[in-house]
Structure formats: C-alpha cells, structure tokens
C-alpha cells in the first residue's frame, strides 16, 4: 500500500519543479531524488511507513499549494488543504510546525505583495514567534506542561546541535529571487535544512528540497553551458551568410577572443561532470562491512518465529524488515513509555534489567558496538539518550549517575553505575580478551572512543552471547529462561 505511494513522490516532485521552473529542472530533479540516499534510506529496509507516505503527502501539498498560488483557483487551494490534512494525519508533529511557518509566510508575502512590507513583516513575525515560543517554553517547562514531549522534542529546538550545514546556505541565497515560487523553495530548503541539522532523521524532509534546489542549479548550469556551445556554432554561420559578395567583410570577421575559451570551458565542464561520476564508481578492492545484514539475516534464519528482540528504537524497522522478527520498540513507536522502558532496561544493572526483559517477554537483546571497527554511531555513544529518555519517564534512572564531570566515560574515570549497567556489559562482553592493537595488551582498547576500557572481564548471569557479527558491530544475546527456585 505504502510502497507505490513512496515511489510516486519523485514524479510528484518532478511536477512540483516543472510547475516552478522548467522541464529540464524537473527531469534532473526526478533523477536526483530517485538516487538520493537520504530518500532511499527511508524507502528501503522496511521504512515503507509513515515517513514515506508523509513525504509523498508533503510534496503533494506543496505542489497543490504552488498550483493554487499560481492560478489563484479555489479548487487547487482546497486540494492543497486536503493534501495537508493527509500529511498531518500520516506523520508526526515536527513537520507540522515547519509547514505552518511556510504557509503563513508565503501567504503573507502574497497578500502584501511588496518586498519591503514583506521584509518588515517577516522580521516582526520571526522575532515575535521566537519571543512567544521562548516564553511558552519557559512557562511550559516550569509549570510542567510540556514534559510529555521529553528531550526527544527539545533537541529539535537546540541550535547548538546545528552541524556543518551553514556553508551550504550561500548556494540557496545565490538563487535570484525572481518568482514567488522560488522564495518558497528557498524557504523550504532553509528551514528543512535547519531541522535536518538539528535532528539527523529529519534529513528526510530536507531531501526533496535539496534535490529541488540542486536540480535547478544543475539544469541552469547545463543550460548555460549548452547555450555557450550553441552560440559558438552560430557565429561561423552568420559569418558565411553574408554571402560571397562581401568576402572582404567576412574575412574581417574576428571572433570574440573569449568565445573559444568559453566553449572549451563549457565542454570541459560538461564532460568533466560525467567523468567524475564514473571515476567515483571505479574503486579498487573494496572492503564491505556488511555486519548489519549478517546479524539481521541470522535473526531471520536462526530464531524461533515467535521470538522478540529488544534493541534501541533506531534499529526497529531494519530488524523487523530484514530480520523478520518482532521488536519491542521501533522507529515509529509513539508511546514514549515504551522507548523509556527499553532505555531503562539498558541502563539498569543486569538483575533489574532481567526483570524488565522478563516482563516484556524478550528473547533476544541486540546492541550495536563499534569498539572493534571504530564505528562511532554505536549504542555506547547513543547511551546518554537511553538514560535521558529512560529517566524522563522513570526517575529511578538519573543521568548524573552515569556521568563524570558531565561526560560519559568508559575508561578508568567511568562512573560505577556505567560500568555495571546492561549496555556496558553487553557491548564489552569478552571484548577485554580480544587483541585489537597488535603489540599492546590484549583487548581493552576501544577504537570508537579511543580509550582503554576499564572493566575487562565481564560475566553475564541471565544472558548469553547468541551471535556476534564478524566485525563485532552487532551483538545479539539470548535471554536465558529463569532458573528453578529452590
């Protein structure tokens, strides 16, 4: 059901671009989005879910909206409203906010129809929005109204987490603001980029915008280059068309000296683009870390059909789709308590975690560990979020217990709670015996964090290693059945 929808969004996007710009840009755009990793990552590996539908709805809404603005027709506007309704009902609230901003600004821009007035309006609006938002946030937090949103939501408003996205901004601004639709694109691009920078998952929303903008840029560049080539071809024609009578004149036709250079440059650029594309694909010996597939396929083949896996929610969709196995929480878990329970289990001592896992009827626990390969987005680096979200629902878990001077450490300076929690045990189980750096002490050196781990010999009581992938990235543990009480 969702698959065709997600696959139609490129065509939708193509339409959107065509609507705003030229056919060429639309084509390039469709091609870009079809191969864009940011988008593919959401439409493969089991993510034919709300997000994929939502992106389709988002683009549909934008398309209809632009159409409505261009034609001024009420039916398009109504369609746009319905598209928006669909979008809201299919996916969560983050994009909701972005949408509102878009709509409002764009609409006002149209109403005022005067750049200066619009700019002052924009300034007033943005400052007041920030003010009101700040006040609401402050009041809400102190009075405890906003707590259900937890840190998962707050992180969205944290500009400090902005990544390296700013260098990209001039690209957007360099687009001449000639059409209203272009303003719309730029706004869409900027805001979505901001949110993507804050929370990497929202790159999904930024993807269509980036594709759109790059498509316009690419098609414009190619158009200019090809027009240069064409101009070059025309010059000799006009020279000879002067006829045989004016041989004197035609012999005196001197080419603009910059033209051959431009032409060669255009050819080099056009060819070079494709050359680079092919050169990039020609790697020598590739080493592929296929550990995720390895682990998921092991789960698929060698676990009972009714088994349940507990892992951090990031891997939920992948495990469900590729491992064909039930997970406790996945990427779409709206119930925050669920995620918090898993976070709590991961940050508790093994005995306590065992009780939680028994109550959740968990058979396997999956953790991602990058200490052997230096893969840095592993569960230890995500661990603070588990503690925070776990502690957000159940105050038994306290963040400071895991931190030393505000830092999460696994080496000598680590806190005792950290060294004994389930996540630490599962990640570093038997890691201490592994020889990672040749010539050094066996094991103990964590390549993802570049420290020597503190606790080298770990004993598990209620769990046993069921499978670990060849580069140790994914580790799966079996939850033992309870022993008989005597």
């Amino acid at each position: 059901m969702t698959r065709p929808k997600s696959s139609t969004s490129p065509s939708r996007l193509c339409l959107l671009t065509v609507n705003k710009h030229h056919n060429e840009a639309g084509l390039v755009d469709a091609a870009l989005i079809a191969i864009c990793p940011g988008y593919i990552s959401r439409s493969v590996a089991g993510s034919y879910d709300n997000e994929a539908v939502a992106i389709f709805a988002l683009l549909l809404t934008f398309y209809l909206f632009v159409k409505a603005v261009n034609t001024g027709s009420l039916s398009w506007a109504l369609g746009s409203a319905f598209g928006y309704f669909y979008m809201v009902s299919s996916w969560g609230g983050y994009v909701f906010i972005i949408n509102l901003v878009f709509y409002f600004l764009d609409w006002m821009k149209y109403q005022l129809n005067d750049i200066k007035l619009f700019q002052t309006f924009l300034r007033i609006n943005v400052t007041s929005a920030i003010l009101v938002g700040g006040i609401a946030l402050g009041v809400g937090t102190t009075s405890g109204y906003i707590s259900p949103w937890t840190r998962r939501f707050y992180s969205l408003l944290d500009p400090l987490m902005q990544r390296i996205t700013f260098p990209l901004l001039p690209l957007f601004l360099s687009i001449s603001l000639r059409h209203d639709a272009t303003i719309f694109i730029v706004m869409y691009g900027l805001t979505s980029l901001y949110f993507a920078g804050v929370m990497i998952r929202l790159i999904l929303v930024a993807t269509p915008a980036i594709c759109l903008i790059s498509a316009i840029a690419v098609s414009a560049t190619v158009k200019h280059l090809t027009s240069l080539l064409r101009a070059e071809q025309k010059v000799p024609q006009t020279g000879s068309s002067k006829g045989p009578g004016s041989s004197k004149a035609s012999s005196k036709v001197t080419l603009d000296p910059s033209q051959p250079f431009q032409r060669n440059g255009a050819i080099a650029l056009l060819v070079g683009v494709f050359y680079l594309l092919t050169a990039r694909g020609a790697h020598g010996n590739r080493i592929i870390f296929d550990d995720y597939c390895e682990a998921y396929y092991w789960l698929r083949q060698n676990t009972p059909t009714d088994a349940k896996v507990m892992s951090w929610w990031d891997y939920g969709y992948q495990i469900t789709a590729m491992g064909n196995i039930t997970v406790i929480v996945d990427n779409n878990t709206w119930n925050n308590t669920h995620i918090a329970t898993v976070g709590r289990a991961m940050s508790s001592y093994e005995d306590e975690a065992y009780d939680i896992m028994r109550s959740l009827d968990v058979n396997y626990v999956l953790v991602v560990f990058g200490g052997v390969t230096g893969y840095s987005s592993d569960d230890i680096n995500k661990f603070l979020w588990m503690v925070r979200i776990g502690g957000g629902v159940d105050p038994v878990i306290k963040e400071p217990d895991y931190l030393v001077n505000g830092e999460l450490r696994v080496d000598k300076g680590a806190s005792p709670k950290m060294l004994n929690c389930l996540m630490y045990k599962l990640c570093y189980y038997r890691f201490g015996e592994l020889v990672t750096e040749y010539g050094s002490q066996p094991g103990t050196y964590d390549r993802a964090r570049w420290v020597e781990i503190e606790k080298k010999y770990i004993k598990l009581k209620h769990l046993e290693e069921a499978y670990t992938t060849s580069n140790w990235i994914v580790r799966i543990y079996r939850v033992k059945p309870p022993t008989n009480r005597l």
Partner: protein
Amino acid sequence: MKKNSSVVVDLLLLLLAITVLATPAFSDLVLSKVERRIDVTSQIARVTKTLKVVNSGSESVSEFTLTFPKFLGNNLAYLSVSHSEGKGKAKRSLANLSVKEAHPKGMPDSISFYSVSLPKPLSKGDTLTLEVVAAFTNVLQPFPEKITQRDIHLVMLQESAQYLSPYVVESQSLSIKLPNARIESYSKLENTKVQGSEIKYGPYKNLAQYSYAPIVVHFESKAAFAVAEKLVREIEVSHWGNVQVTEHYNLVHRGAQLKGEFSRLEYQDRPNPQGVSAFRHLLARLPPRAHSIYYRDDIGNISTSQMQSDSKKTELLIEPRFPLFGGWKTFFTIGYGLPLSDFLFASEGKRFLDISFGSPMIDLVTEKLIVQVVLPEGSKDISVTTPFAVKQSHEIKYSHLDIAGRPVVVLEKNNVVPDHNQKIQVYYKFSNINLLSEPLMLITGFFVLFITCIIYTRADFSISKSSAAYLAKLQWDEVLATLQEVQNIIQKCLAAHDKLEASLRDLSRTGDIQTCKAARKSTDSLLKDLSKELRPLLASLQSFPSASQISPKVEELVAKERELQEKLMAKHTTVVEGYEKKSSGRDIENRIASQQQKIIALRQEVDDLLEFIDEI
C-alpha cells in the same frame, strides 16, 4: 554411553532375526571374493564393493540379489551396479545394470533387498565380477548430539564387519576410510587393524548366508554437514542464446547441534580458532563459460563470494552471511547464465537440452530437489530422459509477454547426492518462428499506441460544438497561435536591430557611410513592414476576451519594441552624422552614451516581456 549400547542391542536383535532365516531361494550362487571399502571422509558414506560371483548351482541364474541392513537401506541415496567381464587387466568394460528394489516373501523387515538383473544368465560354473557403488546419507550420526563451540565434532558409523548377503561368502574384507586418525572408539573383532586413518576388518573366510557382525566406529569428522532441505533449480531456456539457471537453497548444518554460547572471540581466535564444527564456505563448480553470476538472499546481495574461472570450469566459492553451526539454517539464491550452444543440441528434428541434474555444490546432500526446466513458449512434444527414476510433472509458467505460457517440466527427487550429478535430456520441438512473436507483439503494441495518439491529437472529440468551454478552448488555441506569431515578428524585429548595430560596427571599421545608410534604409523598410504585420494581430488579440490579461503585456511589449526602434534609429543617425562631420570616435561615443544606456535597458525589458509571454 546409553545410546551406544542401545544401538548394539538393535544390531543383536537384527542378527537374531537373520539367523532364524532358512532360505534356499538364493543359495545357488557363491561369492568367492568380496572387497568392501567405505569412505566416510565427507558427510556421505560412500560404499564401493567388488563382488566375484560364481554359479555353483546346476541352473543358470539371471538375477542377483543385493542386501543391506534396513537402517542403511532406508538411507540409501544412490546405488549403481556395473559388471566387468573377462579376467585379468583387460576388464575395463563397465556397463551399468538395472537395479530394482525387491520385496521377496518370507524375509524379515530388517533387511532391504535389491535385485540386479544380469546382462546374460550366468550358467553353471561361470564367474562374474560386479562393481557396486552405494551412497548413504544420514548414516554418520553425530554423537554426542549437542556440542559446545569448543568441542570437536564426533560422528558414529554402524556397519557389519561381515558382508550381509543371501549367498555364501568364501572370502571377504572391509576397509573403512576415516577423515583423520582421531578415532574415539571402534569395535575390535578378530583380524582388526588400524592403519593411520583407515580401519581394516578381515579377511574372513567361508561365511554362511546372512552372516552379520555389527561394528560401531566413533570418530572425528571435520567435513561440512551441509544439507539442502530443499533446493529448487530453475533452468530457463531462451532461444536468444542463454540458459539461465537459478538455484534457491534452504541450507542447514546437520551435524551435532550447537549448545550454549556462540563466541565470536573464540571463533576468530588465532592461532587456535574454536568452532571447527562450523563451516564457513561452500564451493560450487559451475560449467565453463558461466556468466552473470549472482549470489543473493531475501535481504539483498551477499558480498562474500569469490569466483575463479578457466576454460574447463568456473569455480564459485560462496560464504554464507554467517558461519553455520550445527542446527543453524540459512537461505540463499545463486544464479548464472550459460551459453545456449553448450547445452542445446538437435537430433531427429527435435531439440534437446543436455544439462546436469543436481546441484553444482561439492559434497552437498539435497533432501528434496526440484528441477524446473522452463522451455520457450510454443515448445511441443516434450519428453525427458533421466539416468535414474524421478517424479515428473508439467506446469505452465507465465513470464513477460507470454500468452500461452511457457511449458515447465518439473522433476522431483528426494535424497540427492553428488553421484546424481548426471546429465538429463529434455527433448522438445520448437519452431524458430515463435521467436519472433514477442518482438512482433511489442512492435504492434507500440504501433497501435502511436496511431492512437496520432488520431487522438488530430481528431476533435468534443460532443457539443457550441458549449462555452469548447469555444473558450478554441479561442485560447487561437490566442496562443497569435501570440506565437507576435513573438516571431518581435524576434524578427530584434534581428533587424542587430543588423543595424552590425552596420554601425562595419562603419567604424571601414568608414563606408553609404553602405551604412543603405543598411539603415533596408532595415527601416523591413521594420515598417513588420509593424504593419503586427497591427492586425494586436487587434485580434484584443478582441479575444480570454486574452484580456495577456494583451496589455503584449501591447507593452510592442510599445517597448517601438521605443527601442526609435532609440536605435536615433543612435544610428547620431553616429552616421558624426562620421559625416568627421568627428572623433570618442566624441561620437560620448554623444551616444546616454542613448546606449537606454537601449540596453529597453532591450532587457523587451527580453523579460518575451520570456513572460513565452511561459504562457
């Protein structure tokens, strides 16, 4: 060792059952010499026997009976009997004999019987040498049945040290070839010798019918106990030059099951890796010139495979995503293309596909093998010859652009071992004209599509020729056409402007005032003509109500263009006058500088307006 002793009890019971027998029916023949060799280096127990048969009776005999204990007979995967005539070294003329399972009356259930029909009746006193090859699966039983990762893999073989036969055996010997010298235990009878990794029993002389001496050998095996629970091989023949083979493997490790933890640390430990009972790769020997090989599973491509090929074979070393321990399963698909000319031949007006039956994997046991030979659409008179019995059925498969579907021959066989990897022949009739049907279908399809499009765009399908919408559409079309004409004319005007500018440039170079004036005159008249042409167009545009939004823009465009014309003319006049007065170049330039700016601005406006109209 409870299990072990119960097996021995079983064997003793069998022995008792046998000794009770008194069957004269088979007693005419005597086996003067029996040599048996059992090879258990892989997971398959492969038994080769050389039997020297002498007819000691008075009547000639045309049938020979082979017997196995039932627990072996049930696991018999492959049996072939060949005979060699003559004596001495020249006995190389092996010929396969037909073998049937027999159920003679009055015989105990604990023995399986197979009857071999001899090539010609064996008359009194004649001798005959039979070569028997038998392969058994599941007879190497893992013991203990569950081991940890650190344990070695031990298996057990039960056999009889004496050859179980309905005939009197004069002299016989048995040798068992083990994978290595690590022997946990073996039954010690008289005349038992161990030589390295080989155990020898015998020779034993003058044994009665149905002699039986149970033995058990318990030894280490490092062989891969890879069993395909189900293997589907799809062989699709395309007369465009390709045979596509796709194989779906449901693989399981049938050795001792892993209990407890799997430790990656110990598995990767150097130099003493633990977990020798697991296997990490499989080797497939594909036919030479195999191409487009892929290796994938439910979740995508598997990157761990290597291929080596030369003119005689293609070797594919595939590594499952994870090492397989006892009891672990995996599923994967391999596929490859083969050149048609190597496998398809013609004989007597028919074509036949000559292709091997079993899996290309080495030492793989297949519990259920399904071979589907997909023939091209339109194949007729299909028949199959196989060197052994298989279950046959027919299906139809629908693929791209099929109408009647492709006939599929489905061959099924249980318990398949590498010995079954023999060629099968699928005969069928196929006319080459059928090859063209699909391209022709495509061509026709596209032709019809284009024709429909042509008709649709040319014909007027509106029902009501007087409805407002229809009229509006007609009018809009006219508006667009008019706009197009206006644009053309404006473009021509702009070209004329360019010409005017060019004449000025020529003037600066040559100083030929007359030519320049002539150029101006011709441009002037041309522009006048053009503006004459423009007038009716503008009038008609104004008359259209639907163009009410556009026509002001168009009028603006025309006005701007006119202004541009005038400015250009003025500039032209200024320059020409300057030349006539022999003013200096700088002077002229100063005089036209302001005009030039206006011209550029106007030109920009005209271009913008043109673009705007273009976008309508």
